[in-house]
């Protein structure tokens, strides 16, 4: 399979109809511990993300949220079940996927520009085009003039912007985000959430967004999936019918419908969190 076929032309701003849906059916993932025991991270996860949809996964610590993402990206192979992206079963690395981690996975030895250029460079884009594209993206995330800095010279929020530009520059069909804003302070987090929504509304990739923060999930998503604690499986799926564009995530938090949905979902999440906490604290004692 040719990797380049499924990438949308980089930089094209069309509202892509080809944003791929994600279809996870009966997915289980078991790991072999070094001692030879098997450990089930997720069991029988079935989940659907419509093309161009923003879907959040919320669940207690260690419920296999990140494992689910790894299966979608093709970094790992499912033990049982299947993952389909855009109607095609995932085998090997899925095309047109970008990943964003909690720890900003930036190259400390590359400049800001070099970091953002990585995506197009790996696809074989000529250097000059890649540079122009990266400069454009840096402008879009508000980092024009910072091209030559190294990541350690930037603040946490700025590093997140670089990571965001690097993730979106290839115009991915699917954006996988693993607690991307988990380590940020509250104010920066709100700003980054707004930025993300703005960029997402321009490009409309399908998003799978992992978070611990229920408010964040409800404010950003079209769909919120609650997972049970380990082994992880889907407990509930909620559709969020707040109108788009959402506008400022800090203001939406005070709307009645938001509070209603949030309370509703929290009822479902609460049990899982309590159960997971009881287990970990019990194990620690």
């Amino acid at each position, binding site marked *: 399979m040719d*990797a380049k076929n499924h990438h949308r032309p980089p930089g094209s701003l069309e509202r892509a109809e080809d944003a791929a849906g994600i279809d996870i059916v009966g997915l289980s993932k078991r790991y072999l511990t070094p001692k030879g025991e098997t450990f089930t991270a997720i069991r029988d996860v079935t989940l659907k993300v419509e093309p161009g949809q923003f879907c959040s996964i919320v669940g207690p610590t260690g419920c296999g949220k990140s494992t689910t993402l*790894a299966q979608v*990206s*093709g*970094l790992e192979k499912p033990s049982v079940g299947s993952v389909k992206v855009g109607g095609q079963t995932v085998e090997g*690395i*899925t*095309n047109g*996927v*970008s*990943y964003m*981690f909690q*720890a900003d*996975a930036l*190259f*400390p*030895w*590359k*400049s800001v520009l070099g970091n953002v250029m*990585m*995506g197009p460079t*790996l*696809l074989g884009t000529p250097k000059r085009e890649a540079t122009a594209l990266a400069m454009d993206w840096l402008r879009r995330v508000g980092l024009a003039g910072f091209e030559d800095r*190294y990541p*350690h010279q930037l603040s946490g929020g700025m590093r997140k912007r670089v990571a965001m530009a690097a993730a979106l520059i*290839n115009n991915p069909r699917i954006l*996988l985000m693993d607690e991307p804003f988990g380590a940020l302070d509250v104010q920066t987090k709100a700003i980054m959430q707004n930025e993300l929504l703005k960029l997402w509304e321009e490009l409309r990739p399908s998003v799978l967004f992992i978070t611990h923060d229920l408010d964040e999930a409800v404010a950003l998503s079209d769909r919120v999936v609650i997972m049970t604690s380990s082994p992880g499986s889907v407990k509930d799926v909620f559709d969020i019918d707040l109108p788009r564009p959402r506008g400022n995530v800090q203001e939406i938090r005070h709307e009645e419908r938001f509070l209603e949905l949030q309370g509703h979902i929290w009822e479902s999440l609460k049990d899982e969190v309590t159960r997971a906490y009881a287990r970990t604290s019990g194990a620690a004692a």
Partner: protein
Amino acid sequence: MTTLTHSETRKSEKPMETDTAAKNAGRSKARRRTASIWIGRVVLAVMVVGGWQWFTEEGWVDKFFFGQPSEIWNSLIKLFTVGTAFGTIWENLWVTAQEAFLGFLLGTLVGVVLGILLGSNKYLSAVVGPYIRIVNSIPRIVLGSIFIVAFGLGVFPKILLAAVLVFFVVFFNAFQGVREVDQNLVANVRVLGASPFQVAMHVTIPSAMTWIIASLHTAFGFAIIGALVAEVLGAQQGIGLIISQAQGTFDPNTVFACMVIIAIVTLLAESLISLLEHKLLKWRPPNRSEAQSI
């Protein structure tokens, strides 16, 4: 050092009129500190060298066995003006430096390649790992005797011994460096469609570079040791041969003089490596290199 001065100049680029006085005070304080450090250094050197000279002069320490700074200086001058039994000092120094340098290159090259290879392949490292540890624990310097028996008194066995000593230092660092690569970074470029070769070029090697370069400082010292020891064991030319001959004629001053020469060569090489380090690792936060300069 470069990074340090860099950030200083950047700060001074945006002056604030109100606190010029404070800045001047800070400057003179920094100047005073540097001056006192240098005074301390000179005093320490004078105390050690002067004390040595004094003790041997007074006869409290026997200068026949322990040499004397003034005599070492005379030996140095003699080495450079009269030369040695094996040609001028420059010829001998050139031989030793060549051996050390070639051994350093060979050991570094093999160490980096094998370190990265084993570091990125779990199966290989599990299989070969114990053997490497065993080989590492044998006294490798003794291999020098074997090399000289096998390859004669020429330059080659010296290069080999230097390379063996260098190899392990570099190898373990490269190996560890590859192991410490941020797996998020690897996952990130793999998702973006990088081939294994691209992962190595863009992530593994640059990331391991910090570790490899840190090992080069120690490694060059080992290269010199390897070359010298092999020369002492048997050679036709080289600083090690001069040392072993001076030992035979009960001449500690020439031994010390050779040590001084080698120390200068090693310091020069060190500074070259530091230069390379700053060039390759200029992306690192400055506080780390500051800690290193102490």
